[in-house]
């Protein structure tokens, strides 16, 4: 996946907001990268453009060399089989009128031909198992009956069901407790090992980004201000914004205030 000078603005005239400005980045196969930025830095807008949910004002998002804005309905469905997203807010991501069982089963609609019912059920159960959700507990419930963490895990289970080539995870663990977060991250790493899935984390959590990713992109006010191998960015940040961000992160072994 490649982004070429992607810009997105909202509004016009005096109220114009440039959310993302001239972002170029590359996400090769079988890598884990993170976009780190504070709220309002444009990272979610960028993720939405990469998922084809929002059109760039200018610039292109290329997947396997093809501009994704040129996709017709059928190609779009194929695209979403390869590129999947996990969103910040599980409550606004699922149809509130469907039970969890139906929501997960609908994921199979991305394929032209659906596997038989029995196989679908088995795969749903296996996917729920990887994210520590009990099928008997969640399948009959509505999304609003789940806790925030359960909802986020449900989205990750859906990603496991689809087994995409690229997974864009926008704050995937913001509602999950530290201990279950560790097991979710393990599950995502396993997805990468088994399927060669590339994962892009979009997060404000430096600790998380540093722990999971090979490449870091630091985003501020719509621009990527610094990028490079995680260790390098963390140990010798060059841009003043990155330096400040790192100085503000609390640590265990160093004074903070």
């Amino acid at each position, binding site marked *: 996946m490649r982004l070429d000078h992607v810009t997105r603005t909202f509004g016009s005239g005096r109220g114009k907001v440039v959310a993302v400005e001239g972002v170029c980045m590359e996400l090769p196969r079988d890598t884990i990268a993170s976009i780190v930025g*504070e*709220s309002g830095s444009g990272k979610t807008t960028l993720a939405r453009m990469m998922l084809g949910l929002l059109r760039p004002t200018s610039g292109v998002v290329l997947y396997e060399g093809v501009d994704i804005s040129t996709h017709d309905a059928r190609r779009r469905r194929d695209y979403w089989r390869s590129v999947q997203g996990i969103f910040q807010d599980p409550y606004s991501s699922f149809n509130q009128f469907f039970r969890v069982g139906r929501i997960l089963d609908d994921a199979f609609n991305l394929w032209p031909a659906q596997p038989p019912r029995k196989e679908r059920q088995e795969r749903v159960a296996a996917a729920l198992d990887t994210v*520590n959700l009990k099928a008997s507990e969640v399948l009959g419930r509505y999304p609003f009956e789940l*806790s925030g*963490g359960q909802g986020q895990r449900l989205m990750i289970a859906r990603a496991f069901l689809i087994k995409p080539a690229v997974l864009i995870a926008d704050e995937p663990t913001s509602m999950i*407790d*530290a*201990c*279950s*977060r*560790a*097991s979710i*991250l*393990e599950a995502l790493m396993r997805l990468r090992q088994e399927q060669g899935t590339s994962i892009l984390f979009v997060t*404000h*959590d*430096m*600790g*998380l*980004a*540093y*722990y999971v990713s090979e490449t870091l992109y630091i985003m501020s006010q719509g621009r990527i201000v610094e990028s490079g191998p*995680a*260790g390098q960015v*963390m*140990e010798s940040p060059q841009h003043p914004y990155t330096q*400040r*961000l*790192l100085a*503000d*992160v*609390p*640590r*265990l*072994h*160093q*004074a*903070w*205030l």
Partner: protein
Amino acid sequence: MGDVLAATDVRAYYRTRFGGQIRAVDGVSFALAEGEVLGIAGESGCGKSTLARALAGLFEPPLYRAGGRVSVEGEDLYEMDAGRLRSEVLGRKVSYIPQSAMNALNPTRRISRFVQDVMRTHYRAMSRADILARARERLRALSLPERVLEAYPFALSGGMQQRAVILVSTLLNPTVLIADEPTSALDVSTQKALVAMLKDLLQRKIARSLIFITHDIVTLRHICDRIAVMYAGELVELGTTDQVIFDPLHPYTRALVGAVLVPEPGMRGRKLGTIPGAPPDLGDLPPGCRFAPRCTEHDEECRARHGELRLVRGRLVRCARLGDAAKEEARCE
């Protein structure tokens, strides 16, 4: 220095529709000293927010008081009638900032209006000018911009809203400030500013002691004197910050501390602490140790016997197995 707040065997349960009860806070005891910062850590659903409400005496159905006592400067909150609790204790002695309080600011009113509301409730005769002068002085002392007073909540950033909430709730110099997840919805830089403000409040003795509730252990490390770890409605470990973070004893505390992600060398490639399974149903608690079903070190006895908090290596821990280890240690010495 004496204790400003003492909680003794506090029990706060929720009544369910079918006559059951959710034991969200189930026998919590601790004392808070003058000038002390106590952190309460634990995962969601462990009862830490309910504990905050119980400490402020705020029982609203379905939450009810099932036992225990909370005394602030020697006065028992639970013996007091509701009117006195409201006019003389809340805000003055105990100030409670609920989770995401900043979202509860009425968007049609300027911050100065909240300031007046609080002051008028307690000092009927105070004039508007006096109140605003006092608020301005406070803002200056905390090096916050004075324009905050004349702003509407939506015109302020999340961090500034949260600081405005803290300003309003500490106007009357409370003895105990209880802050529930004050930093959780904020960016790192704003988090840092907020924690600095809380420390400043303590140093200037505007708030005389603080109970800081969060799931974020790393933040606690930088502000607390002591940390209490909560699991399934009870405290499982209570010790100094260094004891809990750098030498945790309870298996749950160890997993919690082991799951921390910080950008420090040596973090990458380290195995994170994970806990299998889910916390127990607070309406149907196991008879023995509440952590036993998820504990990697439990034995038959753990499942059968519910342990008490005991002093092990200078801190309180609720784990029967650790008691034995301590005895062995003593024998070796």
